[in-house]
């Protein structure tokens, strides 16, 4: 005859959120190898360009925007976490909250790793005078103004910002369709234009520039983190009641 099912969980199993981090890292490619490849690739490419420029007789400081390439991948990562991993997470009987916090944590782990490499490269560049030929990939003066820790925080804040933006827009697209996404993008654009117009009409550009200078990279990073937090909450509220 049949036996009664012995399993009866009366409490939620722990560590489910932690397991979401493991879930995101199951395929190491997504959160580990691809960002590492992009970082390594953009570094190598930047160096090649600097070397060519140096060969052309340029001896001054050579710096470029190559370090931002991995940041764009975090935008893609945010989109991917939403469009592909979210439906699968539902098949794994996860709550939206568990999935969302776990995914943010996974992005944070990846972003932290990326930021550590970024700072280590910067320190190396600082110590060797730009690999001996004045070439700077990470050590960008403005970012490093407040020291390596601040540079680390800035880079990390940017990875999270891009991830959350990607995640939220993907959520909006899945929940409200192309029209919803277009409206939110246009809305965001309209707000930015309005801000620019306001500043222009009030002839406040010098004041704005002054504020940016006074706030500095660390201050801006902190503002950025605050903005990211707001976006993250908005993103969660959009996800919370979304059907699969």
């Amino acid at each position, binding site marked *: 005859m*049949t*036996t*009664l*099912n012995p*399993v*009866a*969980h*009366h*409490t*939620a*199993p722990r560590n*489910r959120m932690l*397991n979401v981090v*493991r*879930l995101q890292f*199951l*395929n190491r*490619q*997504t959160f580990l190898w691809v960002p590492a490849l992009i970082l390594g690739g953009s570094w190598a490419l930047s160096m090649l360009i600097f070397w060519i420029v140096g060969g052309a007789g340029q001896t001054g400081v050579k710096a470029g925007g190559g370090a931002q390439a991995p940041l764009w991948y975090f935008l893609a990562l945010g989109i*991917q976490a939403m469009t*592909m*991993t979210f*439906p*699968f997470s*539902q*098949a*794994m*009987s*996860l*709550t*939206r*909250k*568990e999935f969302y916090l776990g995914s943010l944590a996974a992005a944070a782990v990846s972003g932290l790793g990326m930021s550590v490499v970024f700072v280590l490269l910067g320190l190396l560049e600082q110590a060797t005078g730009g690999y001996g030929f004045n070439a700077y990939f990470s050590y960008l003066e403005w970012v490093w103004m407040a020291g390596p820790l601040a540079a680390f925080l800035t880079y990390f804040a940017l990875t999270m910002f891009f991830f959350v933006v990607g995640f939220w827009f993907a959520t909006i697209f899945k929940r409200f369709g192309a029209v919803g996404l277009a409206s939110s993008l246009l809305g965001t654009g309209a707000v930015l234009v309005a801000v620019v117009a306001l500043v222009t009409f009030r002839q406040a550009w010098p004041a704005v520039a002054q504020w940016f200078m006074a706030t500095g990279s660390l201050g801006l990073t902190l503002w950025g983190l605050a903005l990211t937090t707001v976006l993250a909450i908005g993103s969660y509220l959009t996800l*919370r*009641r979304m*059907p*699969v």
Partner: protein
Amino acid sequence: MSAVIEVRDLTKSYKDAVALDGISFDIEQNAIYGLLGRNGAGKTTAMSILTAQNLPSSGQVKVFGENPYENPKVLSRMCFVRESQKYPDDATARHAFAAARLFFPNWDQGLADELIDDFQLPLKRTIKKLSRGQLSAVGVIIGLASRAEITFFDEPYLGLDAVARQTFYDRLLADYAEHPRTILLSSHLIDEVSNLIERVLLIDAGRIIMDQSAEDARAMATNVVGDAAAIDRAVGGREVIHRESLGRVASVTFLGHLDNAERSVLAAEGLELAPVSLQQLIVRLTQQRSAGAPHVAPAAPEGSLR
């Protein structure tokens, strides 16, 4: 027996359609339920709401006595295998099973390995590149090996050939016998599942039109073939759910059973009696309802109850 799922007046409406129209039912513990009905009848919507993947417009859903929405205590005891489940683009079947192992407390890796063998599932290919049948096999394996206390299978067999489907049914039954649990199986292939299920929930146009044991459902109707006039006398006041005729010969399906005396009378009149299979019964009942409600949209092309 106790109810693990209680649904009361559940309604789900969209802008232009009502998917579920105030349905109520209970699901008892440790039984296999057949959730049957045509495409678009509301089966997937109902299962999505029970597993908190979708939200009701109104009404109440309780699973293990609680609201399942954002409730890890309840969700961790359930598994929902969707017909159109999506997997991450770069995931292989191996990744999917490794994930399932993380989240289903009763996961049985040994059973999963046997099933992988049964279905000859390639583990290293990305799921995106699997055939439709292999994709279904991934879901079936997760559903069986998770041994969740409540498991939902929503048309889990798409693309599986007859042999693979039989493997699924056999494995389901054998594992269920060893590890009783609650299973909701939605299916078009009623003949194939009719002996597996203990209870039938028939859903049509967002309403439950049958909720009873499979045994009772099979005995619900009778078919009689023969002289039309003789049949009319025999059927009497019983509700006729289907009638076809060829000249003076008619084939009539009616609700209700005949006792032995009535049977001998019919036999003496030369009428032939035949049992009505669950599939036939369901086809007749849903046809009858559509005919009675002509405003109901015709089913999707593949929506016939085969």
